[in-house]
Each structure stands twice: as structure tokens, then as C-alpha cells.
């Protein structure tokens, strides 16, 4: 639970600038700003060792077996759940303009680790810009199928629960002082 307390303490420090959901177009726009250079923020996407530290939810950490960070490049990754279960996924990079723009498709794979043709991927467009000395990162995600959203949110929901538990933990700790 300590880890969660740390995240919640940091919550007010981290700048989520805005989020916008267009329900009828099934898109989510998420904007965050980081106290780091644009090149440094680009690295957390480019370097698979850094990428796997944040791509999966904390209880579903990601491992990238391959990450070919060029246009047309493929990535293969899996996320490992609390019971040791594995969710296999892939990326195909569709556009790169370093360090300003990255576009890729993200989908789930079948048991063989290869893209499952029955499941449509989600399309992600990420842009980076320098604003007042910070790096603003905007991700626009467009869903075309329900399966992917349900799978990723199923994993995210668990995180939400743990987050709530972390908050309860903090309240109990405060109450005992």
C-alpha cells in the first residue's frame, strides 16, 4: 500500500492539464505536462526499458520483448496480472516525427503473441510541445471496437480499486495519529 500512498501524495504535483471525451466519436483526449525537456519525455516512449515501467497499470506491468521505434516498426509486449496471467499486445508505428509526434496502433495478440485479426486495434496519436519550459504531451485515442476498451478498462478498473484502497489506508493512518 505504500506505493499507492506515494502516488496520491504526488497527485497534486503532477499536472494533468485536461481530458476531453467525445462520447459520440468514441475518442479520448488526454493532456499532461511534465517538468522535463521534450527530448526527455520522448525517451520514455522510445526506450523500451522506460516504456515498460509505465505502459501497463502498476499491477499489470508491461514487458516489451521487441520495440522497433521506426515507421512501420512493430512492438510485441505482454502485461502480467496479479495472478500471473498474461495479456499479450502489439504496436505498429504508423508515423514518427521525433520528438514532436508519434502515431501507432495498439492491439491485443492471440496466444501465439501475434496480432489477433478478430480484434481491431485502437489508434493513438501522441504530440509533444514545449509550453512555458515544460513538455506538454497530448494523447488522442480513438476506439473502433469494444473488445479492446473492455480488456484495457478491466485491467484499469482493478487499479482504480487499489487506488481507492490506498486512500482508505491513508485515512486510517491519519486517524490513528
Amino acid at each position: 500500500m505504500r506505493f499507492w500512498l506515494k502516488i496520491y501524495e504526488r497527485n497534486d504535483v503532477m499536472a494533468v492539464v485536461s481530458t476531453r471525451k467525445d462520447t459520440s466519436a468514441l475518442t479520448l483526449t488526454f493532456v499532461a505536462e511534465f517538468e522535463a525537456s521534450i527530448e526527455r519525455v520522448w525517451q520514455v516512449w522510445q526506450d523500451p526499458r522506460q516504456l515498460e515501467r509505465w505502459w501497463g497499470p502498476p499491477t499489470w506491468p508491461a514487458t516489451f520483448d521487441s520495440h522497433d521505434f521506426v515507421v512501420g516498426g512493430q512492438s510485441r509486449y505482454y502485461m502480467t496480472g496479479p495472478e500471473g496471467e498474461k495479456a499479450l499486445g502489439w504496436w505498429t508505428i504508423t508515423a514518427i516525427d521525433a520528438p514532436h509526434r508519434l502515431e501507432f496502433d495498439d492491439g491485443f495478440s492471440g496466444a501465439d503473441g501475434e496480432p489477433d485479426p478478430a480484434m481491431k486495434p485502437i489508434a493513438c496519436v501522441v504530440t509533444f510541445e514545449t509550453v512555458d519550459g515544460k513538455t506538454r504531451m497530448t494523447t488522442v485515442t480513438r476506439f473502433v471496437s469494444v473488445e479492446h476498451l473492455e480488456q484495457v478498462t478491466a485491467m484499469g478498473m482493478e487499479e482504480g480499486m487499489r487506488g481507492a484502497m490506498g486512500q482508505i489506508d491513508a485515512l486510517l493512518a491519519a486517524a490513528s495519529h
Partner: protein
Amino acid sequence: MVVDTLSDAEVDRIFHALADATRRDIVTRVIHREQSVSMLAQHYAMSFAAVQKHVVVLERAALVTKERRGREQIVHGDRATLRKAARLLDAYEEIWRLRAQSIDEILAEDIREE
């Protein structure tokens, strides 16, 4: 889980219905104000029958309801269904919040190492 309020088949119908630009536009229009199918048809370069078909797809997804008023068919938006779809996006937004927090943690290590 959030999606408990909708069955898989219901969510599938909503996603399929919203995958089309004309249908999204119809939803946006009738959410603001009820309209007849013939009024809607004036906005699009397609036949009345084609617009009618789009409305049927939206009806099946429970995004709109249709009622007959005299010779007109009036289309209403169903805000409750749209709200349910919004809840799915909420869950996804939470995942991005967690990701941004984790990136922030990684970047904070640079400062500590300096």
C-alpha cells in the same frame, strides 16, 4: 466493473452505431432537439431511405427512440445510453492518469540523480 451496466451485446451495438460519421451527426442533432426523419434527411446528400436506415441502427443501439406523429416519424436522443458509453471512456481516462503519474515518477528520478 463499470461496464456491468451494459451487456457486451449492447455495447457492441453502441460502438457499431457510433462508428459511422452520419450516425454520429444524427445523434448530436437529436440530442439537442427532437427532429423528424424528413428534417434530418435534408442535412445529408443521401436518400430518405438511407437516412431511415441509419436511424434504425441508432434505434437498435438504444441511442435514439422514434415515435410516429401523424405522417411524421420523430427521432429523440437517448441521453442515458450516451452516458453509459461515456462511463467506458471514463475508465480509459483513468488508465491514462495512471500512466502519466508513472511517467512523472520516472522523470522525477532524473532530478534526484542530478
